[in-house]
């Protein structure tokens, strides 16, 4: 939350201070700047703030508005980095050129190279003789940063019959030793309290911490193992909110392959499919454990409550589930069960999204329509919004579990819950766009085919 305000005339937006100081540096920064001369959004986010301004060391520069002395200090920091930034810009141009020459296309060059370019500029200054060699090494290095953490390696690893036998035994033992439970009411009640506070400027983390400490995530996971319904006030929606296509989850299999298009519900996925998703989607694969270790840990995790080892991540599932049952993407306004501040925030976002989609002529019918085809399927997903939400949430949390990245406080948990809501919305938008494009892309157009074609 922004701090209390000072008089208007004195304060200046930090973004403006950065913009002005940047432009004052003059020419030589084109590759880090937008067409109008402002620094690229990514330049500010990945270079200027974390590497030059460093608000962690200078908390007074972390605010959105700065008083004149702070503004002046920030401008000086940028001015003093002018030489290094110009060198960074030249390294970036060189790296992009090298990348093209080497035929590397994966990833966004800004994300991949910005920080490295700043390091190179710090170490070598501007690129000189021998810089091409360095650039090639960096591009190669970053292209292979996965360090063998690939789907291919996973396939090889899981091809070993001895290993498969061992994993199978582990899965059987771990699945047998589960301790199911039947009542999660206490966890869900507390989840509602947490959701009521998580959008506040100073979220109260204590209820969240209590849930983690008591093990409410584990409790909910144990209930999902045995109870098909009745958790959310009726037989529908199911207790697991679509985390499995079955009434209750079944023992995971090991699996030998996967395809993005046909992935089953999260808790129905094989070990292979679970790890496949992690390897496919992780932008920083070098942070993952090596493939044999990934494989060794997954049987235990897959038989843990909710398929996750870390309790804070399991609590995030409970919070997400409690949030998901009250989502109202179609704006029906039905008074959902105990909507909280978090629901109001996310449903408000859906309402804005709906108005964008109407203005962009990308609607789906709010009422069921048997003739609706692909669009009706998308509308149907909006009528059961929890399934898409839980699916995405689980994948994100599983990725964190694998990387050993828990959610230490309510603010970080809410960032994930809110981010998933946003992703679900963006998914919907992309799917509507694709469905409409498919409709208008039927092969024969009027101009080409004046006569109706027979099928």
């Amino acid at each position: 939350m922004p701090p209390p305000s000072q008089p208007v005339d004195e304060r200046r937006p930090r973004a403006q201070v950065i913009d002005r100081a940047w432009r004052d540096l003059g020419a030589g920064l084109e590759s880090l700047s937008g067409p109008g001369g402002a620094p690229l959004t990514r330049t500010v986010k990945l270079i200027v703030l974390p590497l030059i301004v460093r608000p962690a060391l200078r908390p007074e520069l972390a605010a959105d508005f700065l008083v004149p002395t702070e503004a002046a200090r920030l401008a000086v920091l940028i001015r003093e980095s002018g030489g290094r930034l110009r060198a960074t810009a030249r390294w970036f141009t060189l790296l992009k050129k090298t990348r093209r020459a080497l035929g590397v296309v994966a990833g966004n060059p800004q994300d991949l190279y910005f920080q490295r370019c700043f390091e190179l500029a710090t170490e070598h200054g501007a690129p000189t003789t021998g810089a091409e060699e360095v650039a090639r090494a960096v591009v190669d290095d970053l292209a292979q940063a996965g360090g063998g953490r690939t789907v291919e390696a996973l396939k090889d690893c899981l091809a070993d019959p001895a290993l498969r036998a061992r994993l199978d035994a582990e899965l059987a033992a771990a699945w047998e030793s589960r301790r199911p439970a039947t009542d999660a009411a206490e966890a869900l009640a507390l989840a509602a309290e947490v959701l009521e506070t998580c959008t506040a400027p100073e979220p109260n983390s204590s209820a969240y911490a209590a849930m983690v400490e008591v093990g409410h995530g584990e409790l909910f996971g144990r209930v999902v193992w045995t109870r098909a319904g009745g958790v959310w006030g009726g037989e529908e929606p199911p207790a697991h909110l679509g985390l499995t296509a079955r009434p209750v989850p079944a023992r995971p299999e090991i699996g030998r392959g996967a395809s993005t298009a046909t992935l089953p519900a999260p808790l129905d996925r094989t070990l292979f499919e679970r790890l496949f998703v992690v390897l496919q989607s992780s932008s920083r694969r070098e942070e993952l454990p090596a493939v044999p270790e990934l494989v060794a840990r997954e049987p235990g995790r897959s038989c843990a409550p909710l398929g996750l080892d870390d309790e804070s991540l399991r609590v995030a599932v409970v919070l997400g589930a409690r949030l998901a049952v009250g989502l109202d993407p179609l704006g029906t306004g039905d008074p959902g069960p105990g909507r909280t501040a978090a629901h109001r925030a996310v449903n408000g976002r859906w309402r804005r999204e709906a108005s964008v989609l109407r203005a962009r002529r990308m609607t789906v019918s709010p009422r069921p329509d048997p003739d609706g085809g692909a669009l009706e399927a998308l509308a149907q997903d909006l009528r059961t919004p929890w399934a898409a939400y839980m699916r995405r949430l689980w994948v994100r949390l599983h990725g964190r579990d694998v990387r050993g990245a828990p959610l230490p406080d309510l603010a970080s948990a809410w960032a994930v819950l809110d981010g998933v809501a946003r992703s679900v919305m963006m998914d919907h938008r992309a799917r509507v766009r694709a469905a409409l494009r498919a409709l208008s892309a039927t092969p024969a157009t009027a101009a080409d085919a004046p006569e109706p074609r027979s099928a």
Partner: protein
Amino acid sequence: MTEVHVARGRDGSVRVTAGPVSGQTGGPDDEGVPGPDFTRCVLDVAGALLVWPVLGTPGPPVAEVHDVRRAQQWLWAVYGEGVAAAVHDAAAGHPTGRRLTAGTSALTHTAARLGFGHWAARWWPASYPDGIPELEGDVLGLELAALTHQCQELSDDFDDGVADLIEEHRAAVDPLLRWWHALPPQPDGTADHLERVLRLVDDAADCVGLDGPELQRLRSALDEERGHARASAPVDLSALFARRDGHALAAGAAPRAGGRVIARGAGTNDWRRYPPGFVDSAEHAVSWTARAHGARRQIEVEVVAHVSAPAAGVPLAAEVRVNGGGPHRIPLVRRDDVWAGRGELELLPEAGLPVTATPRIEVGVLLPGFDPGPGPDLGVEREAIRDLARRRLADAAQPSTDGTGPFLAEILAAAPDEDY
């Protein structure tokens, strides 16, 4: 300089409204710009929605700021620092709204243009009978990519769509290059406009790491241009972009249906009920004829197709209501330049009227699954949009006028069918 109003809403979001349209216009979906969906330009930016009215005088956008911290990145650049501070204060709990003066900047104008371009890509009222040509989608798409790149400060992640726009519309790169090469260099003319767009597309592609044959040709053409004069050769624009002007209305070509005509009329062409590119935007694109075949009553519906509508595979439907009764759907299939369908008609008399009274028949066209449902009669607004399109095309036909700042796609649409 324009006056704006900054106030916090009940949901915690902060709204910046321009001019006389302030927060009291109403409903939960209202963005501070009243009017139907097709009269609003909407831009999704970091932490906020920006909305402009399509009709009426240009001005600063209405902003619905839902994440004040993210929005601080651009608020000062779009509205000036005073408004940025007022939004900050409103979010921090400043109780009452404030009225203050907003500045304008290059970013304000470019953002408005981007918003309008997105609107045009979805709602441009292309119509054969109205003489409003369609806008070439790939040309418009690439110019939107260029504008998005120019407005890069507005977004804080990579879902601003530049990469998608370039990928989807890269087919226009080569024709645009040929068009550019065919034009004599002249200051502030279309050649400059083309070069600006092409350079921005090239830079945007470079920024996000896109590559491919079209983009490589674009890069080398732009590199060459710095050193060489262009080889000017006339070019046929309609051939370059494969324009579809050959829309021959199949008036009277329908198979004779027989029977006795008992009524005929025009239906409602509600643009909101189907996606762009299927139905001609003319007000009278929907027509119907009711016939008597002995005791049976049938209705035939014809809907003029959009010039680039797909020939098959689209389940468009007509919706028929008789005397205010429940809606009844008739599937439409493509026949020449119309979507056509025929169905039985239940002519029950309206309550309180004699059986002999002329039936009241209402016909609409919609895409099932897309249709948000029938709405109020918006004929006046549709006509205003057609007027706007005609005005812009007239401006675009004279590249010297700087009035509307036409898009390349508009210049192309307004160009006469001859060698350029």
